[in-house]
């Protein structure tokens, strides 16, 4: 990967660009707790939305509180898919409105 101004990709890709790769979240966290899942989701959302991490809570709505548009929602979903090594169905994605919704979905899928 070449690094170029104006084309920032996800955090995991940037880490590869600087020379180390992160173990997929699941393999590195065999007994992952709900809190850890939520923390990771909040981190992804904060990163993509350039939103202060400490201001995001479980009840935060992606659209109303984080002001994500549809494209940003898809980007967040793709990053979550890659991080937790799952594929989220379009129908399920439509139901995810808040951080808690996303956490519940992931928790159900990976446990």
């Amino acid at each position, binding site marked *: 990967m*070449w690094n170029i*101004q*104006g*084309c*920032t990709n996800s955090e995991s890709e940037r880490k590869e660009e600087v020379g180390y790769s992160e173990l997929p979240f699941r393999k590195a966290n065999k007994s992952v707790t709900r809190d850890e899942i939520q923390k990771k989701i909040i981190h992804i959302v904060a990163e993509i939305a*350039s939103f202060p991490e400490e201001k995001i809570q479980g009840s935060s709505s992606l659209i109303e509180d984080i002001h994500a548009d549809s494209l940003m929602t898809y980007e967040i979903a*793709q990053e979550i898919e890659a991080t937790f090594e799952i594929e989220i169905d379009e129908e399920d994605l439509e139901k995810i409105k808040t951080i808690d919704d996303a956490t519940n979905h992931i928790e159900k899928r990976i446990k």
Partner: protein
Amino acid sequence: MTNKKRVVITGIGSVNSLGNSVPEFWEHLLQGKSGVDTISKFDCSQHRCKIAAEVKNFDPSLVIEPRDIRRLDLFTQYALYATHEAVQDSKINFAEENPSRISVNLGSGMGGMTQVEKQVQLARDKGFRRVAPYAIPSAMLSAASSEISIKYGLKGMNFAASAACASSSYAIGLSARMIQYGESDIVVSGGTEAVVTPTTIAGFASARALSKRNNEPQKASRPFDSERDGFVMGEGAGIIILEELEHAKKRNAKIYAELVGVGWGADAYHITAPDQKGKGAEYVMLQAINDANIKKEQISYINAHGTSTKQNDFIETMAIKSVFGDYAYNIPVSSTKSMIGHLIGAAGGIECMVCALSIFHSKIHGTANYETPDPECDLDYVPNESRDLEVLYAMSNSFAFGGSNVSLVLGKLND
């Protein structure tokens, strides 16, 4: 058409290798500085060409929200940054204008190439499901004009003009027509380009268009000099606010120059090489002078396309001599590309701006690196030093891959 409305330039903004604002750029141009250096944006060790005129110390966060920076291709970031300067410079208050009477029309040769290259690599490395949702709206040629339309709420025409190295000259010409025809009062025009990317540089180098003077970057762009060996890639944006004259007068706008003539046409010859007799170039220069309704001897200065390729500089010289006859030797001709390289789809925007500045400040910049005369290029190329000159009419030439040619004539405003 008769009774066409008059078009003036009331705001300018730029980002390029010589500065991230117009005053900085203009000062460095007059000093004859070079913006060319070894490529820093990517590892160029495998490339034939290792030099470019890159934008330096660019901080988009001064103008663009952080969450937007990550999804916008660099060519759109440059456009938004330069538009911010142009709008401030023009002192237009969009809230007081009818938004449907304000259009955006920007030139770009290649659009979001940075994004395209990045997403192709991402797809290959990580799979097609990882391609970003903003890949397409970020890479499309009209991304830059659209982001400007959305940011400022401009509801007139919104589109991109693309004709390789003549893109922004086409955009400016079309924008002028939109105002002359009464379709818009104001058009945000000019162009933007960000193609210092690994594959684009490799592609231009493989076509043998780029200079290989890798060990002397600042000497590489040397238009009209006999030792020239190709152009140097540049990047950035040149944004021009075009406004209907009466509209500009009503709000007491600062007027840099009037856009008086547009000439356009095509070589219909070859996808990269110019018509070997320069007929296409000759035609558009004559047409622009005709459209301006002036005598050719009234042209005080030519801002040449002047790329520093063997073919362009020789053929452009031939065409200028065909148009102006012996009078060609009385007209100073200089190349902005000698200092900021070739900005492809943004070149015409910046060079039109340079003509407007030359008229406004009565100064013309020189052609840098002009050291060894070429017998086939025997005009006054304003070697290395800028000059004081009262510029009444200036001509800006753009001749593109694909054979698209545009010549613009700007004039000092007289009533």
